[in-house]
């Protein structure tokens, strides 16, 4: 039994296709993050799961029941919104118990739930206040509390942290993580912030143009991006994608960057399919953090490149190198001294690279 299953789901607003044949499954207790740039359809998908948007094609199942046409209140879900959406005319207590009252839960049970949740979220001292008298973090807590008291099967979060300032955001992120560890309720969480996604999700579904690009664990998303979009979207600065060609002979596979006078041996790379690799146009993907200043293991590839630009960001520095007129970014500790306009010896960690087909943009 899947807690949530989405089957061949399509949605369009007028002639714009927002979601194209989405398939998605979530197991009990997972924390799924829907991640993507704005306009990718992630919020629409969340609204559809909640029942706030209608479906053009396909179905949504919660606990194997088809809920595609069921009202939001009967889906056994709870949602936390970006603007918190607390009812301004009600105080915190009324806000939190509103849903239970609508569901005609007994007074004793309501009180019990309220006490439990408000203690748990440390808002029990705020119960008589109006939302306008709360700070951003407090509002966020109350909004989560309002969702918690309903004890739903699935929590839905719609960019809940994006209205908070940077410091508070990190704090609340940790709290949500703790919350999930303690409650183990299934969560679907929408965000455009990759750090949030990485730190919170047990699964991340990366979306673009209404299509799920990759739906895997954060580690796999980071280490084995399934296409250039994911590779580019995750990581900061994002993965270097060096255009070039493959040369395959019986015993080895070489990558030559466009215009470069050296080859990179990539025998150790685990290709899906090793046939027909010769002369293939590809992108060689390597993350800035996997380019080293000192050799770390035997197989590291050594190359001399000229540094063009240096950006100091405190504990780290980002250096832009010139690789046969393609930009290559590398990230080093700030203690390392690198002189601009001079050749510097660098080491590529070949265990960490990704290769993509230049035509299909897919991982190969």
């Amino acid at each position, binding site marked *: 039994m899947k807690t949530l299953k989405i089957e061949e789901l399509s949605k369009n607003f007028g002639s714009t296709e927002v979601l194209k044949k989405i398939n998605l499954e979530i197991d009990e207790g997972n924390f799924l993050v829907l991640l993507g740039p704005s306009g990718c359809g992630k919020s629409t998908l969340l609204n559809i799961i909640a029942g706030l948007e209608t479906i053009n094609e396909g179905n949504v199942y919660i606990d194997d029941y088809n809920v595609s046409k069921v009202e*939001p209140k*009967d889906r056994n*879900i709870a*949602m936390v919104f970006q603007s918190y*959406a607390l009812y301004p*005319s009600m105080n915190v207590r009324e806000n939190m118990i*509103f849903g239970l009252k*609508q569901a005609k839960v007994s007074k004793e049970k309501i009180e019990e739930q309220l006490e439990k949740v408000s203690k748990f979220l440390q808002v029990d001292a705020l119960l008589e206040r109006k939302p306008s008298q709360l700070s951003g973090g407090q509002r966020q807590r109350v909004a989560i509390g*309002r969702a918690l008291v*309903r004890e739903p099967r699935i929590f839905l979060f719609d960019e809940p942290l994006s209205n908070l300032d940077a410091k508070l955001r990190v704090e609340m992120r940790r709290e949500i993580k703790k919350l999930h560890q303690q409650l183990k309720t299934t969560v679907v969480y929408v965000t455009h912030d990759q750090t949030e996604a990485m730190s919170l999700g047990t699964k991340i579904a990366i979306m673009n143009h209404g299509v799920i690009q990759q739906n895997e664990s954060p580690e796999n998303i980071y280490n084995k991006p399934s296409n250039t979009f994911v590779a580019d979207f995750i990581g900061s600065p994002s993965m270097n994608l060096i255009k070039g060609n493959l040369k395959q002979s019986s015993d080895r596979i070489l990558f030559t960057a466009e215009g470069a006078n050296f080859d990179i041996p990539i025998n150790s790379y685990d290709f899906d399919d090793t046939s027909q690799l010769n002369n293939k146009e590809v992108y060689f993907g390597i993350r800035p953090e996997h380019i080293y200043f000192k050799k770390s293991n035997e197989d590291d590839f050594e190359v001399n490149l000229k540094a063009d630009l240096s950006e100091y960001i405190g504990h780290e520095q980002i250096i832009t190198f010139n690789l046969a007129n393609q930009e290559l970014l590398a990230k080093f500790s700030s203690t390392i001294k690198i002189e601009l306009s001079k050749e510097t010896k660098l080491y590529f960690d070949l265990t960490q690279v990704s290769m993509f087909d230049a035509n299909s943009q897919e991982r190969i």
Partner: protein
Amino acid sequence: MFKWLEKNLPKIVMAPAVGLIGWFVYGFVLWTLYISFTNSKILPKYELWGVGQYVKLWASRKWLISVDNLLVFTALFLIFCIVIGIILAIFLDQKIRAEGVLRTIYLYPMALSFIVTGTAWKWILNPTLGLQKMFIDWGFENFTFDWLVNREMAIYTIVIAGVWQSAGFVMALFLAGLRSVEDEIVKAAKIDGAGLFTVYWKILLPMMRPVFFTSFVILVHISIKSYDLIVALTQGGPGISTTMPALFMTQAAFHKSQVGLSAASAMMMFMAVAAVIIPYLYSELRRENAR
């Protein structure tokens, strides 16, 4: 000299507006206030006479009837305008197909003058050929509708016409208010299981408090000043049964040569409006500064 001019240019440009309003609004109100303390008859006199005009005013049967009418009219006018306005606004907020057309229809009376409105309603409510005849011709033989010429009921005809003219306006205010509420609030309420009725009654309408306040102030203001509609519909009649303060004031001033008395009645109206407006302006300003 030139420097000074340049520096004070903004203030010089402000001067006409401030001067005109200072003279024609504040100066004139003070003048009226002063005259209300004199025994002016056909022409203003300037010796002070004390509060005699106010004593006379509140002893006048016609004034008391005016005030009475004003209270009745204001109460009904407010209730009907706000109730109808809210109902229409909420209903129009449900993704209605012909919303634009309906909104135009509800609001067009606001574009007409009270004289035009009054003329039309006078004809419709006219007991011989108007609504009454229509219903009799439809077979309701004993139908009578003579409110316009009935001392007891004539005031309600003014309510009917007034509500017709202003309800659409309240609708527009509430619709704008409802549309400014964040989507997510309604979504949250839906997930909480609130039905349409509960969403409006428990969540959205309580959020409309400022709109209620604004509508209240504007409607009270309209009703205190109502003059044209009465002139066009009943001329204060039958007898003096539909007189209102504004009508009382102009009649005293320009037909009955009771300048002092009319000044006193004008000041009473002024104070009534001020009692509503000053708290309103105060709260509005505070809201703006709080932002």
